[in-house]
C-alpha cells in the first residue's frame, strides 16, 4: 500500500442553485479541482450522491458526469451511503490509489435538493433510515435526531439552550467562508426562538436543505509535489458501520459507528485525539456534534455539550470544529458534504483558510456520517 495525497480542491458555493442542474454543479467542482491539481490525467471518477434517483429522477451518475465533464471513457461510478456518500466515495478513491489500481482519481460529491418541495425532500432523506420500521411509522430523519437529543437531555440533565454554542460557532465561522450558505451570525436568543421542526430539534439545531458540489483529486504522495506545491497527505482513512435503525442500537447515545471509525483512523495514523488541530465533524444537528465529540475521544460521555459553553470548539480553542461553517451554516448538500469537509480541512492545512485560519494547523480530521450514525467515514489529513 502506498501513501495518498490530495492535490486538487474544487467547490461550488452552497446554495439554492435554481439556474444550475446536478451535472452543472458537479462539473463546476470537478473542473476547479482538476485545475487546482494541474494534472490532465484522470484514471477514475467516484461520485458521492444520495438522492439523485428520488429527487432528480437520475441515476447512473458515474457515466453521466464523466461524459459531461470531459472524462468520457474513464472508470466512473456513483457511491451511496446516505449523508455519508461523499466521504464513502473518497474512501474508495483512497483505496484505489493506495492499492496501486489507479494513480489519479477524482472524487466528487454532489447533491441537488432544491428542485423539490419540502415533504418530498423530507421523505427522500428518511430513506437513510430503516424503511419498514422507522420511516413507515412516520419518523422523519429530523425526528430520529430529536429522539437522540431528548434522551441526551434527560440522561445528562442539560437543557436545549446548552446546545446553542454549536449553532452560534458554526454561523460565526461561516462569515469567513465565501462558499457558505448562511454567512451571518446568530445569537443564543435566535437559537431559542427558532421554529420547531421535531421537538426539541428546531431550525437552528438543523442543517439546511441546499445544493452544492465539491471535488478533490488524489494521487500517490511520492509524486504529489510535481503537481501541487501544497499537497495534503491522507494519514488515515477508515469506514465503519452501526445498525441502520436507532431502535437496534446497543447504546443509543454511544454513536458506536463513529467511535469505531475514529479508533481505526487514530490507529492507522498512530495519533490520539490530542494530536488533532481541528475537527470537521458531521453537525447535521447540534446533538450529532456533541455525540461525535464524545465518540471520537474529545469529551467524556455526557460532557461533550460543555465544550460549547467553554469555547473549546472555537477557532483558537482546544478543538476547533466547523471552522468554515459546518453542515449547519456552510450548508449540507448531503452527498457532497463529506467532500466539503475534507476540502475545508485541506484549506486549513494549506494555510488558505483566510480569516478562519487555525494557527499552525498541521493535522486535521473530518468525519462524515450517513444516517443517524450508521455509516461513518473518518479521514485524517496532514500538511505536506
Amino acid at each position, binding site marked *: 500500500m502506498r501513501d495518498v495525497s490530495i492535490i486538487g480542491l474544487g467547490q461550488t458555493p452552497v446554495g439554492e442553485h435554481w439556474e444550475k442542474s446536478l451535472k452543472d454543479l458537479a462539473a463546476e467542482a470537478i473542473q476547479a479541482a482538476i485545475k487546482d491539481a494541474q494534472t490532465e490525467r484522470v484514471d477514475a471518477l467516484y461520485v458521492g450522491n444520495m438522492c439523485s434517483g428520488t429527487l432528480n429522477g437520475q441515476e447512473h451518475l458515474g457515466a453521466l458526469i464523466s461524459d459531461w465533464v470531459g472524462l468520457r471513457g474513464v472508470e466512473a461510478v456513483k457511491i451511496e451511503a446516505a449523508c455519508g456518500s461523499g466521504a464513502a466515495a473518497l474512501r474508495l478513491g483512497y483505496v484505489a490509489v493506495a492499492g496501486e489500481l489507479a494513480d489519479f482519481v477524482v472524487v466528487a460529491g454532489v447533491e441537488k435538493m432544491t428542485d423539490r418541495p*419540502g*415533504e*418530498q425532500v*423530507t*421523505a427522500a432523506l*428518511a430513506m437513510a433510515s*430503516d424503511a*419498514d*420500521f*422507522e*420511516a*413507515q*411509522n*412516520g*419518523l*422523519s430523519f*429530523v*425526528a*430520529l435526531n*430529536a*429522539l*437522540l437529543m*431528548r*434522551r441526551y437531555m*434527560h440522561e445528562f440533565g442539560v437543557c436545549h439552550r446548552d446546545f446553542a454554542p454549536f449553532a452560534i460557532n458554526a454561523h460565526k465561522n461561516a462569515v469567513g467562508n465565501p462558499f457558505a450558505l448562511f454567512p451571518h451570525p446568530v445569537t443564543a436568543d435566535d437559537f431559542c426562538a427558532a421554529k*420547531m*421542526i*421535531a*421537538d*426539541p*430539534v428546531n431550525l437552528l439545531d438543523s442543517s439546511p436543505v441546499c445544493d452544492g458540489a465539491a471535488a478533490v483529486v488524489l494521487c500517490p504522495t511520492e509524486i504529489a509535489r510535481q503537481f501541487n506545491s501544497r499537497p495534503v497527505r491522507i494519514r488515515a482513512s477508515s469506514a465503519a458501520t452501526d*445498525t441502520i*435503525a*436507532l*431502535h*437496534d*442500537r*446497543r447504546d*443509543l447515545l454511544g454513536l458506536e459507528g463513529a467511535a469505531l471509525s475514529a479508533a481505526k483512523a487514530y490507529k492507522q495514523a498512530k495519533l490520539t485525539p490530542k494530536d488533532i488541530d481541528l475537527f470537521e465533524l458531521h453537525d447535521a444537528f447540534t446533538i450529532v456534534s456533541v455525540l461525535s465529540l464524545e465518540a471520537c475521544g474529545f469529551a467524556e460521555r455526557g460532557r461533550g455539550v460543555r465544550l460549547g459553553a467553554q469555547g473549546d470548539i472555537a477557532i483558537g480553542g482546544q478543538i476547533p470544529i466547523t471552522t468554515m461553517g459546518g453542515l449547519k451554516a456552510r450548508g449540507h448538500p448531503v452527498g457532497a458534504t463529506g467532500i466539503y469537509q475534507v476540502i475545508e480541512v485541506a484549506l486549513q492545512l494549506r494555510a488558505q483558510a483566510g480569516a478562519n485560519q487555525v494557527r499552525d494547523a498541521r493535522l486535521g480530521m473530518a468525519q462524515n456520517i450517513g444516517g443517524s450514525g450508521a455509516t461513518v467515514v473518518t479521514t485524517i489529513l496532514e500538511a505536506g
Partner: protein
Amino acid sequence: MEIARHWRLQRHRYSLVGEVCNHCGVKIFPARDVCPECNAPAKTPYTFSGKGEVYSYSTVHHPPEGFEHFAPYVVALVRLVEGPLVAAQLTDVEGEKIEIGMPVEMVTRKLRDDGSKGTIVYGYKFRPVIAGGAAVVAKDAAV
C-alpha cells in the same frame, strides 16, 4: 403500492411478532433472523406483550410525504418490557403530556394511506396505559 411488502410484515405490524434467540434467549424486535447479541440464527417467532415505557419522544411538525395530514404527531422510542426498543408513533395523547418513563401499550392504528386508490397501511402505535387496567377507547380511536 407495494402490497406484498406490507403483507409480508403483517404479523410484525398487527401482532408485534418478533423472534427469540434459542441460543442466548434474547427477545428480538423487529425480527432479523440473526441474534444481535450472539449472532446465532434466531427464527423462532415470539409475540411481545405490547407493554412498555417511553424511552424518548418527539413531536413531528414537518412530516415526510404521506404523513402530512397526521401532523403534528408524536413519535417515540418505546422500551418494551421484554427488552427491545421500538420506534413508533404515540397516539391518544398530546405531546406536552408525555414524559420519559411513561407506561404505554400497543394499539393498532392506521399508519398511512397512499392516496385514494392506494393501500392503507395499518400497524402498531402506542398509547398511555390508562390507570385502572381496562383501556378506555378514545373517541378518535378509529383513525
